[in-house]
Every structure is written in structure tokens, then in C-alpha cells.
């Protein structure tokens, strides 16, 4: 008797304290203020049809570097740089964001020289404008400025947009009455939304809530990134990529004598590299493009043992030995301009994964960008795939609204998934195979592969096809 009584009291007390404030009602809640989330926000607010939607963007990190970038532009380049395809740029132009990009900080390039670390076969990708290197923060800032501009142009008293940073999504539940997602934030607020978009990166809490399965694997590699200063500004704006047994190393041009590095390394070496003193780090990068794998393995061994004295000079000496027999023109054709220093705080590492969600949509849920798929950075496609997703999702939402449908309805969202899944799947597969092909170091595979590279070089139509895939043209 008393037990029952206590129990009832407890429940009553619980409901009293737990009774939340009414959740805020929105049409679209976007989790993630990264490249995908902000492009989606600008895309929807720029749309004649979709701009009436009430949107909230929730970002866990501080967006102040994005917000201040336009007026208080930092002098250094950030280490998170992505190559944007002409297709991505075309869309950013269409939604009015590219006008706000800091053009002096982006670098178009028209070719990549791909070499092979063991046999030194070369593959040149050329195209009038292959892609453009752009800091992620520059891109995010242009989107943020565009959103502010649209807000300024709006004549209605309510623009229907809120961007909340420094706020994490901690839980997602469902409204028991109409099954709409309820998003709980770490500041105690709750939102109820017609459509919940996960632009929340690889660990996507939205994907987890929706129960959508994602398949893939960790490459057991980390991407070591940094911003480098070169001896002089290169005459040609091109990228360099060399396939080493541990994965590819890539140096991509930034304005002036700056360049950005993505070096795919084993877990252990990536850790070792990111702890190495900056001067040695720079020489290891130079060495990786010019010296043999055996030389590099020797240096790694010495660093592991803590015997770093004299290594810098040794690397410089070996490099000069290799280049001694070459003319200046030959050097320029075969190797990137040597790096002289690195921005120390720019050295960082990121795990490299392949993953692909089984579907991008469920009832009242859509996933875009890295929340739906992640890829090895060797083809510079990750961010661009997200831009493609956003374009397609905006189109699907517009179409749904023109038909008077509830935009959370799977009938509205399915065309987005149907359009993007096959394209992304193909890309993920190609990139994965390239990675695998180049991670073997046994002789037959290397022979085959350098034969492949040389043959490819003379088969221009195959190359054109690959160029068009890399640059996102159909």
C-alpha cells in the first residue's frame, strides 16, 4: 500500500520537474555549421520557393572565426583547405555566396603531377581549370556573409533563421503525438522540427538517432595537414601528388609562395610527424617528394630512436644529390618547389575513413555531407560531394513545396537520395580502389601500376575521363 503510494508520488514529482518548456517549432533544423550545413542554409534562404521556411542551425563549436573572417581576416592560411570543383563553385555563385569569398586567398590550379614513389612513373592531369584551393573557413565565411546579406534584403519583419553556435545537440527524441523529431540542446533548450537535417559530420548524431546504418572502414591512416612556405612562388599553378607505400602525399598551391599539405600516413608515423620539430618536418616533406622510400624509412627509424641530430642536413644533401644531374627545367617539371618553413601551429592530423550510409533519408530526416559519406582525401572530393548533396536536397525540397507536400515526407526526400547515392557510391569506390592500388609495394603490383600510369598518360581520353571526375564535370 505504502509502496504504491510512494511510487505514485515519485512519478508525480518526476513529471513536475521534468515538464520542459514548450519546444521551439521550426521547419528545418540543421545540425552542423560546417561547409555542408551552411551551404544548405544559404541555398534554402536564397530560394524563391523555400525561403519562407523557418530554419535553425545548431553548431557545437564556436563559429567566431567564421563570423569575423570577413572583416578581420587573419594573415596566415588555415590548415583546413579543400579543393573546390568548378561545379561546386558554380553552385556557390548561383546562390550568391561566391561574391563574398576572399579571392586573394583562393588559388585555382590547372593540373596535378602524379608520381609514383617506387618506380617514378608520372601522370599529368591537365585541364583549363581543374579546381580551386580554398580554406574551409573562407568558404564558410562567404556563406555566412551571404546569409547576412539575404537577411538584410528581406522585407518581411521575420527572416526565419537562427544560427546558434557553441551549442551541442545532446539528445534527439520523437514527439509522441505527431512523431516529429525533438532536439535537445546542452543549454536546456528543445526544438521540434518538421525536417531534421544531419550536416553533422562523420559521427553524425542525427544518423545515429535515425537508425540509418553506415558501412565502411578506417584506412588505418591519418591525414597530416599543414601550411608550408616555399622557396619562391611557383611559375605554374599545379598540384603535386606522390603515391608512397604508406599512402599519397599531396602538396597543393595556395596564393604566392604558400602551399597546403595533405600527407596520408600510418597511425604511428602520423603521430611521430606531428611531434617532429618544424624544421625537420619541412625537410621530411621535401624528401618524401624526391627521395626513395628506403631513404625515408631510414629517417623515420632515426626519429623513432630520437637521433634527429644532423638529419636535416642529411636530407638536404641527398636531395641535392638527386637533383645534381638535372637541369633547372627538369627539376621544375618533376618536383614541387622546395618548402622552406611550416606554420608550426598548422600541423595537425585527421583519421581517414571510408564510410557510406545505407540511405540518406528517413521519415523527417535527411543526411548531407560527411554525415552520409566520408572518403580518402586523395582525390579531394569529400567536401565537394557534400556540395552536390546540398544542391540536390534543395531541389527536392523546392519541388516538394511546389507540390504542397510536407517537406519531412519521404516522398519529398527520396528523389534526393536516388539522385546522389549512385554518384557518391561510384566516387567512393574509385577513390578506394586508387588508394588500395597504390598501397601495395610488392614488385608485380608496382610494375603493373607504373605501366598503368604510363599507359594512361598516353591515352588522353581515359585521362580526360578521370580529369572530369576529379573536377566534378559530367
Amino acid at each position, binding site marked *: 500500500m505504502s509502496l504504491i503510494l510512494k511510487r505514485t508520488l515519485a512519478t508525480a514529482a518526476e513529471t513536475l520537474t521534468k515538464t520542459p518548456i514548450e519546444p521551439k517549432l521550426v521547419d528545418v533544423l540543421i545540425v552542423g555549421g560546417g561547409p555542408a550545413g551552411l551551404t544548405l542554409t544559404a541555398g534554402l534562404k536564397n530560394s524563391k520557393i523555400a525561403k519562407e521556411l523557418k530554419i535553425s542551425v545548431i553548431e557545437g563549436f564556436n563559429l567566431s572565426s567564421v563570423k569575423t573572417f570577413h572583416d578581420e581576416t587573419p594573415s596566415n592560411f588555415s590548415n583546413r583547405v579543400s579543393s573546390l570543383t568548378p561545379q561546386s563553385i558554380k553552385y556557390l555563385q548561383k546562390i550568391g555566396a561566391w561574391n563574398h569569398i576572399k579571392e586573394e586567398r583562393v588559388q585555382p590550379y590547372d593540373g596535378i603531377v602524379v608520381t609514383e614513389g617506387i618506380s617514378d612513373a608520372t601522370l599529368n592531369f591537365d585541364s583549363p581549370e581543374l579546381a580551386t584551393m580554398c580554406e574551409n573557413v573562407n568558404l564558410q565565411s562567404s556563406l555566412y556573409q551571404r546569409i547576412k546579406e539575404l537577411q538584410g534584403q528581406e522585407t518581411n519583419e521575420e527572416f526565419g533563421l537562427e544560427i546558434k553556435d557553441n551549442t551541442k545537440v545532446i539528445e534527439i527524441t520523437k514527439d509522441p503525438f*505527431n512523431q516529429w523529431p525533438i532536439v535537445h540542446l546542452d543549454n536546456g533548450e528543445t526544438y521540434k522540427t518538421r525536417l531534421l537535417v544531419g550536416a553533422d559530420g562523420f559521427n553524425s548524431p542525427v544518423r545515429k538517432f535515425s537508425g540509418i546504418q553506415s558501412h565502411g572502414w578506417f584506412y588505418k591512416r591519418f591525414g597530416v595537414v599543414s601550411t608550408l612556405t616555399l622557396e619562391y612562388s611557383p611559375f605554374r599553378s599545379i598540384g603535386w601528388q606522390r603515391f608512397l607505400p604508406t599512402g599519397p602525399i599531396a602538396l597543393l598551391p595556395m596564393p604566392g609562395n604558400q602551399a597546403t599539405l595533405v600527407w596520408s600516413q600510418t597511425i604511428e608515423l602520423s603521430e611521430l610527424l606531428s611531434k617532429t620539430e618544424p624544421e625537420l618536418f619541412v625537410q621530411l616533406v621535401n624528401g618524401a617528394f624526391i627521395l626513395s622510400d628506403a631513404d625515408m624509412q631510414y629517417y623515420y627509424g632515426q626519429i623513432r630512436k630520437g637521433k634527429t641530430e644532423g638529419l636535416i642536413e642529411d636530407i638536404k644533401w641527398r636531395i641535392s644529390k638527386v637533383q645534381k644531374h638535372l637541369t633547372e627545367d627538369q627539376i621544375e617539371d618533376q618536383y614541387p618547389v622546395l618548402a622552406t618553413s611550416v606554420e608550426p601551429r598548422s600541423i595537425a592530423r585527421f583519421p581517414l575513413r571510408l564510410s557510406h550510409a545505407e540511405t540518406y533519408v528517413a521519415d523527417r530526416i535527411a543526411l548531407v555531407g560527411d554525415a552520409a559519406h566520408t572518403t580518402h582525401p586523395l582525390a579531394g572530393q569529400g567536401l565537394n560531394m557534400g556540395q552536390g548533396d546540398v544542391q540536390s536536397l534543395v531541389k527536392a525540397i523546392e519541388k516538394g513545396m511546389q*507540390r504542397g507536400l510536407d517537406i519531412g515526407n519521404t*516522398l519529398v526526400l527520396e528523389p534526393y537520395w536516388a539522385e546522389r547515392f549512385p554518384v557518391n557510391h561510384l566516387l567512393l569506390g574509385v577513390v578506394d580502389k586508387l588508394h588500395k592500388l597504390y598501397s601495395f609495394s610488392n614488385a608485380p603490383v608496382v610494375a603493373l601500376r607504373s605501366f598503368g600510369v604510363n599507359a594512361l598518360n598516353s591515352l588522353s581520353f581515359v585521362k580526360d575521363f578521370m580529369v572530369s571526375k576529379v573536377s566534378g564535370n559530367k
Partner: protein
Amino acid sequence: MIKSPNVVRQLKHVSRITSQISSKRLLSTSPILRHQDKKTSTSQDEMDHFNQLASTWWDVNGPQRILHKMNLLRMDFIQSTLRENIPLNEGVLNKEEEIYVPGYSLDLLPEQIRNAIVHEQESKRDQVISQMPKYKILDIGCGGGILTESLARLPTVESVKGIDLSTDVLEAAKLHKALDPALTDKISYQLMPIEDISKSEKYDIITMFEMLEHVNFPSEVLGSALSHLKPNGWLFISTINRDFISWFTTIFMGEYVLNIVPKGTHHLEKYINESEVQDWFKEKPQFEVVKSEGCMYLPFKGWVYSGNASVGNYFMAIRRVK
């Protein structure tokens, strides 16, 4: 997958079907009002059938998936018809400000000029639409409200009244409407036959989708609906031709082989040919059949225009011109 006894039974019916195909339908007004007390009503069998479907009406992957899919194309049909027929130069006094509408097909023009003309026309349309009074709509035979809700969400629509004779289906419509706060003030549902709507109630748009093939006396239903249309108002309908293709696709394949349409949804003898509707309207000069489009369901693709309104399903747009 194939339910053989049913298939065989259906095949046996083919001979009977031929006779059903030939007889006229729309004008048959032999009113045998046995169970029915209203002329615009529907048999009890039909109503029982729809009542059973109420609980799964809104499951887009359930028995009504085909109807949900059809809703996409018919919303396109309604929207494009309304948009194409917006007067671009009404009330423009100054010739200079008129939007250029060439008297020949735009396809004959060079692409750039064509794009410029299209762009100019479209922005003018947007402008005219934004200044127009919003539509008041009557959705007859609204069922669970698939079309009703879509219409109500359009920014150009003020309100939609949905009427139906099936209690359970209308209940499902009301429950579903309550789930979306955006619909609260825009939709009202009522259980009533058309003829009970007060004479003074007039609408800009009346819709009657996938319903005429169920009613006893379609001409009564049509006439009754038209009496509520405002001048320049629109009636949109969809139904099915009474031909072998329709029997084959909607009843034989849809209901019996593929199981994508609930069994007992259709009765061939109640189908109405597009030409019969056209003929019926010819005698009514105050109305004009503005557009008529055949449509069909393709697995993996959904509903598409078929290019032939006299076969299978069709949509029609009728306007009150006087």
C-alpha cells in the same frame, strides 16, 4: 506473387468486360435510388470499401502508395494549369509595360531570346500571383486528405473544405490534419454529399480526384459541383477511361497481380471515358475544357503523362468562362 485463382477468375470476366466497355456511362441517369437517398451519392459497398482503408490511408508505403504517388503529378498538373492561365497583361494601360507574348511557339526563337522572354514572363507571373486574392477551394471526395493537405499548404491558397461520405476515412483525414500545425486554420472537413452544400457557397477551385468512377450518377455529381464554381473558377477532375487497357492496368494488374491497389477499389462498369466528359461539356457553353492529359503509372518511375487522354487514367481542367 500471382494469386492464381483470382487471376483465373479475372480472366473469365474478360468476356463480360467487353460488354461493360461498350455501354454509355456518364449520361445514364436511370435513378434507381434503392439504398441511396441522394442523387450525388455512392453505393454502400463502395463506402464500406473505403472505410476499411482509413487506418492505413497515410502510410506512404502502404495500400495507398499509388495514390500518394499520383498526388505528385496531379499537383504539378493543377499548378501548371493555374500558372499558364494567369493573365499577364490584365489592367496594363500602357503598351510599353506589356509583357511580350509572341503569337507563335517560343521554340522557334534563338535560345537566348527565348530564355529572356521566359524569364520575363515568369517574373511577371510571380508578381501577379503575389497580388492575387488567395484561392478558396472545395475538395469533393477528399478521402484521407492527400490532395486536400497539399492544396492547403500552397501559399496561394486561403482555405480548403474537404467533403466525403466515408466516416472512417474522414476521421483519418481529421486526425492527420491535426498532426501538422501549419494546416490548422486552412482545412475544414465535413461529412456530407455535394448537394447539401449551401447554394450560396462559391469556390475559386473545385477538385474531384479519383472519385467519379465510384459514384452512381456522375453527371449529377458533376452538375452539382459546377454550381458552386465562381466565374473564371476551375474544376479539376481525374478519373479512368472505360477500356481494356484500364481494366488491364487498374484492376487486373493493380489489384490482382501486383497488389498495389487495394482489391475492390475499382468497378469497370463505372469508369467514364474522356470523350464522354468532353461531349457532356460541349453542351454547356459556360464551361470550357482547358486541358486534358492522360497519365499512367510506371513501376520505378511513378506517374507520368501518357500523351493520350482517351486511354487509362486522365486529368482534366475545366473553367467557367461565363
